[in-house]
């Protein structure tokens, strides 16, 4: 799934831009972006173990928490900030979202779509919290405490006057949905969404 997510992000990002990858884990995306493009990439990662791996690989990464530490960055510090599959795990998604668009020119946000037909069906038929490839945890072990649908997300952006510049809808294999009809009913058909935001 991630690989394709990465490819889309790479296409969105412009040459010579300053980037912050929030929740960069072991730096896979930063390394991927470094390969094809000239970028000034930084990372913020909550797990110290992952941070150490990143720095060992020569990446500029600091240990920190998206919920608490974005405040220390001045406005428009970055051309792009990336929050890939992490928004749903933050304590305060609305605050984080506003911080993202404050510290960057463009924010790239992706998250699993809880409104996908598969999730809806699992809940409807089985009557238990859905588990899938993009939502692999049980309800009691999941870090995803703020799951939302694509529709929910758009509403939140709207409420905060955050402009959605580009939208990508992905199927369960992480592939971009091309069929225009399926694309139109994205909240029902896509497994995850990726958005480029601006304020």
């Amino acid at each position: 799934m991630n690989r394709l997510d990465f490819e889309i992000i790479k296409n969105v990002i412009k040459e010579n831009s300053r980037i912050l990858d929030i929740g960069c884990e072991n730096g896979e995306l930063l390394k991927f972006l470094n390969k094809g493009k000239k970028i000034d990439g930084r990372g913020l990662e909550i797990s110290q173990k992952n941070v150490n791996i990143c720095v060992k690989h020569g990446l500029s990464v600091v240990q920190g928490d998206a919920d608490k530490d974005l405040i220390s960055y001045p406005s428009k510090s970055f051309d792009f900030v990336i929050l890939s599959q992490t928004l749903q795990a933050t304590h305060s998604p609305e605050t984080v979202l506003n911080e993202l668009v404050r510290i960057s020119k463009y924010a790239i946000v992706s998250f699993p779509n809880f409104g996908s037909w598969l999730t809806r069906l699992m809940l409807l038929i089985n009557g238990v919290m859905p588990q899938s490839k993009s939502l692999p945890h049980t309800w009691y072990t999941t870090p995803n405490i703020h799951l939302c649908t694509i529709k929910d997300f758009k509403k939140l952006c709207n409420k905060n006057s955050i402009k959605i510049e580009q939208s990508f809808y992905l199927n369960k294999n992480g592939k971009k949905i091309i069929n225009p009809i399926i694309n139109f009913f994205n909240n029902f058909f896509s497994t995850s969404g990726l958005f480029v935001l601006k304020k």
Partner: protein
Amino acid sequence: MLAHITYLSEEAFQRKFGRNLQNKLSLTYGFKTDFQVESYLKHQGQTFVDRFDANSYLYITRAMDYFDLPSQKKGGLKNIYKNTPVKFCVISFTSDWIYPTKYSKEIVDSLNAVRANVSFVEIQTDKGHDAFLLDEKEFNETVKGFLKATANKIGF
């Protein structure tokens, strides 16, 4: 002796010495050396006295008292780093109680505030302040990775 205690950590002392006795089977309840840790600290203390002039410590501690980086510029610590071209790597050790992680993070925050290029790593170790002098694998690899990437960047 007192200073030497601060270079190590509680865990390291516990692991190395515990309440082990020095060349004896039972306590003497006197003022002579009963515990291994006493003997160790006495030895370290003596080594320091032999190696360094006590006056040099007076000068060093005074210099440290007068050192006040944030006051050098208006706006404090973050303005010290403004427009810096330097690539930073801040490293702290979990059991270092002379330079705790909290203060390292303060430096990192002020570097972020001026968009400096900074990495921050905290190394898990029980070797205390002395860890940076010892063969600490995680620490060595971090420094190696950072230097290598920086050298690559400037075409070294």
